[in-house]
């Protein structure tokens, strides 16, 4: 379900830089709605205000997704810091999402 390319190893759960993400969704389809809620919960708990999230609705902008190499939704792309990482699905697997975002906490381990 998850594909991650993050090169970061396990370390202290410190967030000092802004995490930039893009979430591709399909309107108000059920998995897209769940993905938004799950990501929001993770961001609120671990990133506070240190993140920037761009929501892209593929029903409105399919070409944008295609140009970014995204073929399925919901799909989350971590743009920065570090390497780009993608995670597919409704983001209910918190550990995988946190690993993809480089948030190595005890919970993720």
């Amino acid at each position, binding site marked *: *379900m*998850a594909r991650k390319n993050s090169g970061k190893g396990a370390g202290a759960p410190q967030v000092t830089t802004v995490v930039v993400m893009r979430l591709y969704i*399909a309107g108000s*389809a059920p998995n897209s709605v769940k993905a938004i809620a799950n990501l929001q919960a993770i961001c609120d708990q671990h990133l506070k205000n240190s993140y920037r999230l761009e929501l892209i609705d593929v029903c409105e902008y399919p070409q944008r997704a295609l140009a970014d190499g995204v*073929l*399925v*939704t919901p799909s989350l792309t971590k743009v920065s810091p570090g390497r780009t990482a993608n995670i597919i*699905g409704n983001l209910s697997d918190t550990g995988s999402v946190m690993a993809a975002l480089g948030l190595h906490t005890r919970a993720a381990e």
Partner: protein
Amino acid sequence: MTLDAQLAARSPSKSEAAAAFQTWIRRVVTGAAELRALDDGQLDAIIDPATGNAIMLPAAQVVLHGSRRIVRNAFDALPSGICVLDPTGTVVMTNRAWRAFAVARAGAGLGIGEGGNFLVACRNADAGERVHALAVAVGLRRVLDGSLSQFRRDYACRSPGGNCAFTLIITGPANNASPHVIVTRENVRERKQTRASHGRGRARRNRIVTLARAGTPNRLLASLPARDYARLRGSLEPVTLTYGEILFEPGQPMRHVYFPSDCVVSLLTIVEGHRALEVGLVGREGMVGSRLALGSTQSSVRALVQGTGAAVRIASARFLRAFRESPALQRTMLRFADTLMTQVSQTAVCNCFHVVEERLARWLLMTRERLQTSEFHLTHEFLADMLGVRRVGVTTAASSLQRQKLIRYQRGNIRILDQRGLEAAACACYQQVRIKDPDARSA
């Protein structure tokens, strides 16, 4: 048209169409993570690389179809007429109220249906409503080009169904994702009726509160929030207190607490079992029995009614219950207890250091504030007891004030002639103990 539908149209049976769709999905989705999410039912849509369109998966389609029905029903249930315009001004969606208006008014009042263009309708409006219609067209163009976020226009027209007046509200796109414009038609008469009915409701509530408090001009009760006053109201009992009546004696339990309306109660300390000295004066600004709020059930003073008048009382147990339950009542009572303590200590100082004439002037002013009248009946003996002096001392002081034309004193009837002059004649203690409420001073 979804890919599922396209395939279904081409395929001889539904099952074959579904199989073909699954085959297409497996051809497009090749990554392990994507396939895992697909098998777990966590995907909503796939983007067709050939056409660049987003194709909804069947499970998502079912849910969205249900959601759209709910939204549509809610849209139709709204009482205001609403239509949605695309960026060219063409009506792409209307609700039931909008359609009903269009049918009833035969197209008057810009009542156009889906597929019609709003700007064209404005241009073609009848002469009777052309001024309004052209103004709406200008506003709509500004909303469409983004120079205005919302436009409102009161609109009146004639139609086969009779004259009608409404307000058109044109609201621009909320975000870049949806370039559509919403037009809302609010019926003016209904809006006015709604406002009037709200106004009537407010006025009625205010009247009820006013009526409920009308019988209790006591300032303490009047200062309570409506909910806290309502808690006490059922237990309040109107009583008439008569001159010379003793409400409490020192050391006796306080069975009731009293809230004077237009009478005055003196708080007297008893010395050597028979001599009394006034230490406090309570009228419509306060209550008699405030020690209950401080945790004591017995009176420490004699409470003697000075002037016949109305009051309300409440049984001590009920008062204590309300006191425990109401933070507002607690604050009010403790504030008054503090005020009374200030008055008692100031009176003690006054009795010790100031001459009888000054003290008499203070006492007359305090009584006037509490009785809300400049004329009252008091004998020399009574005044002597209140001030803790001999009768002759009161006679001398009253004569002096009369000579200065500040009061008139005749056979026990006292009339204050010059309030400002009397204030000047009183000692500085009066400024410390006077009622801070301006209403109470404007007798």
